[in-house]
């Protein structure tokens, strides 16, 4: 069944909002276009996160709609026509909130998963 198309769940193996968070974090460091964003995320995660490249675009559209990023057509350093995304102030604020709540959640999950330690201590 090699030709079966990827189903929706395969591309959404991240928890909802994770992709958006990573995009925003990447853009906080520097504005980028879609292709560069994919490259960046895959490299930074040491290729642990295999994101289907296309799935970036619905996420970008959601961020655009929420006015967390803005986009502009331009020319890249390699002289390609690209659409460059930039994080907005609202995006920065949103990212901070997301990261802190994510960290709390991660901490909680880690506590539960850690073997041998009782929560009573």
């Amino acid at each position: 069944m090699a030709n079966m198309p990827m189903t929706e769940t395969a591309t959404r193996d991240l928890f909802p909002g994770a992709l958006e968070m990573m995009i925003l974090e990447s853009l906080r460091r520097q504005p980028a276009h879609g292709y560069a964003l994919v490259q960046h995320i895959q490299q930074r995660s040491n290729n642990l996160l295999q994101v289907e490249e296309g799935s970036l675009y619905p996420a970008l559209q959601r961020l655009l709609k929420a006015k967390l990023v803005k986009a502009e057509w331009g020319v890249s350093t390699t002289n390609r026509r690209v659409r460059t995304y930039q994080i907005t102030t609202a995006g920065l604020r949103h990212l901070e909130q997301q990261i802190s709540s994510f960290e709390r959640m991660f901490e909680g999950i880690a506590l539960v998963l850690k073997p041998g330690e009782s929560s009573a201590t």
Partner: protein
Amino acid sequence: MTLNSSIFGRRRLFNDLNEEMRLHIEERTEQLMREGMSRQEAERQARVAFGNPTLIEERSRAVWQWPTLESIWADVRLALRGLRKSPGFTITAVLTLTLAIGANAVVFGVLNALILRPLNVPQAESLFVVQHGSGIASHSYPDYLDLRKRNRSFDDVAVFAISQSGLDTGKDPSNAWEYETTGNYFDVLRIQPYLGRFFHASDEHGPNSAPYVVLSYAYWHTHFQDDRTVVGRVVRLNKHPFTILGVAPPGFQGTILFFASDIFVPIVNHEQLSGDKLILNARGSRWMFEMVGRLKPVVTPAQAAADLNSVDAYLKQSYPKEESNDSYTLARPGLHGDYLNGPTQAFLTGLMLLSGLILLAACANLGSLFAARAADRSREVALRLALGSTRSRILRQLFTESVLLSLAGGVVGLAASILLLRRLSVWQPFPRYPLHVPVSPDANVYLVALVLALVSGVLFGIVPVRQILRVNPYQIVKAGSTGAFGRRLTVRDGLLVVQIAICAVLVTSSMVAVRGLMRSMRSNFGFEPQNAMLVDTDLTTAGYSGEKVPAMQRRMIDALQAIPGVDSVGSVNYPPLEPPGSWQGTVYTDTTEDLSPSNTAADPYWYNVTPDYFRASGTSLLAGRAFTWHDDTNAPRVAVVNREFASKILGSVPEAVGRYFKLRDGTRVRVVGLVEDGKYVNLTEGQRPAMFFPLLQSPSSWTWLVVRSSRDPQQLAAAVRRVLQDIDPAMVLAIRPWSTELGGTLFPSRMATISLGVLGMMGAMLSITGIFGMAAYSVSKRFKELGIRVALGAQRKEVLQAAVGRSFKLLAIGSGVGLVLGLLATRVLAFIVYQATPRDPLVLAGVVLAMAALGLLATWIPAQRALSVNPLVLLREE
């Protein structure tokens, strides 16, 4: 953001997105090529890494859309396109649904108007009909006065009688139907006049003290041309002056839904209207039509009934001779309490069930059509699944299609039913009575039709769901649509059997009803309506009273007798089988000494007739003699009785003549003649005792002349009118052939037969479309197979069997089941339709023949197609 800018802005957004994605794949390809791949390989890898672009684009777009709304709209457009492509399917489906939903809307409309909708008066929920016994008219005026005074459960109670008066405005007197009501009638109902004022209890000061009349809105509109100055005008009712007080509000025509009264008159003036001095004070005369009461807020109907019965117990003690053993009960108003409410409700509920069955059959029908359509489209479905569509999306698409169809059918069906209901509302089945069926549709009807449409859409849309969920796109795209159509019993087969069974039930019940009606038309009424003319003459309306009445009646009979071609003329106080009922009187056997209600021998029907009545009506005299003009007040009381009376009360049929029985007042009556049994109130009644008295010994001013003649009815009617108007030009006459007059009696069973007939026809049509769809589909599916069979030398018979044999088998099973169910169901019918017996060989044969004929008709075209298979052409094509 305005809608406009959002739409244009969105187009740019989507173009940007498209371009961006294209560039992304391009960049990846170039990158891969730099790493040493060939262009072709690089392009492939880039696409694999990117994922399904269509799906991604769709999801990206979805971010900007009102997601559900727009995708539903897209589904609707797609569905419309799909339906346009198969007009045959669409038209069949919409038509089927139109019929089914229309039928349901009509039946529900009637049910809603007659049973569910409360009476059109304020606080209708606290208004109740007080019933005494189960007869049609059950209260006497003195009883009413006592009940009103002594009960503690009602705010107030009113009572009324229905009668007819000659209303004279100065020109051209005409008959008007009136409610003779107690003064508090309008106040009990809590309604306000449209014009002028109503009469009240305070207007009553003893007999003939309130010569007032209130007009119904409709009567004011038709007879006074909306003239607002009528208030205060004096008109003559049966020659007595009455002042018009006001006009009732539009839509109010009395408390009986289907009986539209023309005018309302105070009951205290009954003597002026009827010429009868005594009846208002006669406790034993139960002639008031209906008592309505406004219950006190905290009292339940059961408590009120108990209260009334305790008053009744007191009355029984005080007046043992006059009071009967009947007890008081409460019922909802509108259809004269339980008297009509019961049968109407039973019949309409039955009809509702049957039309529900029609809708179910239609759904089964459409469900199998839909399943076939889904099977045909399995390739399309597989392709869409392969391209990344989700199954739920495809199901939603299918449901959109089915709901669209059902809504279309629902709207058309509702429109048709509204037209029909409106027609029904203005229809007057009997010219002589102000009877109509007030069934104008309201919001409830629209709502029910809409809900039914949606439910049926979901119902038949659900059929192919399993099929879709099982689709394996890989298999189907590779192998073509599955050849699963074969020996196995499928859901479609089951549905077809169910549908045919339902249709057979409908066909069976309609045939039983039609047969019953045919038989009831031919049954023995105890008189001969053919060649007889009825003339309704009310001498009170013409101003006659006392001694002048019998003399005038004799004169009329003699004058009519002189018309050439007239065989005999008689008169009767009220003809048998004339709605709404018949007079009844209590009798005792001759040996009974204590004449209290508990010793009653029977309540036979009571007729006052002139000597020639039996001959004129065609009632055969079995023994003894008929009356003569000498059986008058000076002669001993005599009677003629029917066979049932003789065997039940006199104890012997052969020796009945010469025996005696007693009336309520103790009078001994000698039986001088014996006549055949007949039907007296309705056709479904069992054999009932009846007695006939000489008109001269118990006079009444309202009589019906029966003129027997074989002359042409038109000419005869004209001659009768001429002769009678020569005698008195002021007389109001209604002349009609007796057979026409019987229409009223046959009305319920006719209505039942018509509605069942229509439902049966619809059932038949549904089974045709169902079988046709199935057979046609099966033939088209197996065209190739049939071609091969023919090529291999199959005979016509074998081809036919292969093509439509299965449809026929299913038809046979379905019909069998339906026939059995239908016969069981028609037991219920027997209550309404006279002599509707399911054990009728003609009905059985008829149903079997009808279903076989339907099967032949429906499989004819597919069978022809199967026979015309040309294997050469067919095999070349594939």
